């Protein structure tokens, strides 16, 4: 019964945190650009405004995939807060990403198709890193369970810092920030119209925004796992990663999709594989 309550609280609180973080994001970005910036709760205004707009249906299939995106993302978040299997969480996150891509492909707009193609490239870039992260956790703890991470006395960061760096790159891709602002044109509103979001409007745009807030909290939660005890360090490390992403976003130009895949595979994947190989090598020696 206790677990059910934890899950319900997480489902309610996560979008509030995500929306507030999005507000902080817009405020800090504005200040870095020498502007005053919108109010802190502006993302909530945008969200409720979008709920009040009329629905324009270009494809009904798209709505089903968008609901799938939300539900898989919530399921992944519930897995995290209930300290379940990390590998399964990564697969759920993958299902969520694929649902979003299929939403983009299910209408006829070429801009939407371009965005969906680029979203697929993003998944190609970050999914191996996430899988190898789960494998790295298995190599240190001997289990995929997140509860095991909380029980061990040394933080994961001590042994898995190269994977942690790779995960920071994944956070940038997941937050759709420069230099990986590829599929939705988060800042460049006029490029590709709006990428995968082109045909998603009104209440369904609000739905995607909600899912992005869940996603942000989820990925920050994965980053926080790297220093699971005590709780305040966990929160601090997630916030530090978030602020770091904002700075990276503001000092970088946007790159191409091909560059993104080459970069994440050359740096992220190599870091992960070296890390895991080193862990198994040390195990063999001792």
């Amino acid at each position, binding site marked *: 019964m206790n677990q059910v309550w934890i899950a319900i609280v997480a489902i309610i609180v996560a979008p509030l945190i995500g929306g507030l973080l999005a507000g902080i994001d817009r405020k800090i970005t504005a200040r870095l650009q020498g502007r005053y910036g*919108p*109010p802190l709760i*502006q993302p909530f*205004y945008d969200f409720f405004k979008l709920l009040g707009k009329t629905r*324009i249906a270009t494809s009904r299939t798209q709505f089903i995939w968008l609901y799938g995106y939300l539900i898989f993302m919530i399921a992944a978040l519930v897995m995290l807060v209930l300290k379940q299997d990390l590998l399964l969480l990564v697969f759920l996150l993958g299902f969520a990403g694929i649902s979003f891509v299929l939403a983009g492909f299910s209408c006829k707009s070429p801009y939407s198709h371009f965005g969906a193609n680029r979203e697929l490239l993003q998944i190609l870039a970050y999914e191996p890193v996430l899988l190898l992260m789960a494998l790295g956790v298995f190599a240190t703890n001997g289990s995929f369970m997140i509860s095991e991470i909380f029980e061990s006395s040394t933080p994961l960061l001590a042994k898995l810092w190269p994977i942690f760096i790779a995960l920071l790159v994944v956070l940038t891709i997941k937050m759709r920030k420069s230099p990986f602002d590829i599929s939705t044109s988060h800042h460049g*509103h006029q490029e590709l119209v*709006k990428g995968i979001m082109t045909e998603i*409007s009104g209440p369904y745009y609000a739905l995607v925004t909600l899912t992005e807030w869940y996603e942000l909290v989820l990925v920050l939660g994965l980053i926080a796992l790297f220093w699971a005890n005590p709780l305040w360090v966990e929160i601090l490390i997630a916030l530090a990663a978030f602020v770091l992403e904002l700075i990276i976003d503001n000092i970088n130009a946007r790159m191409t999709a091909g560059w993104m895949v080459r970069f994440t595979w050359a740096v992220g994947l190599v870091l992960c594989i070296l890390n895991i190989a080193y862990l198994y090598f040390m195990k063999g020696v001792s």
Partner: protein
Amino acid sequence: MGIIRASQIKSPWILHFDNSSCNGCDIEVLACLTPLYDVERFGMVNMGNPKHADVLVVTGPVNYRTARVLKNLYSQVPDPKMVIAVGTCACSGGVFHNCYNILGGVDKVLPVDVYVPGCAARPEAIIDGVVLALQKLAKAVGVAK
């Protein structure tokens, strides 16, 4: 739903369309986004997609070719929506009003909510126009103060 209606006047997303303007007003519209004026303070974001927009900001006189495009864009903006004509040309046709290819102001094609005169309209005037449009919207949805 009070919260939805209250939010509708807090986050106007703008779609900027240039009919056949001399680019003077367009530059002033873009000037609103710079750090000096920073319209994002009021939640305004310049969108490139009519399906995400709330406010259609139109500059320049309507000619026979752009009238079709303008109608198309307007029909893609989901309700509730507002149209603002920025600059003298968009209001009445301006110096082009007698030209053989010009229909006239934006109101020949679309229902215009706010006219922002000026050649070119100053950024302060454009921001004022958007605020006026939001007040009109607030009255329409019933959250006027």
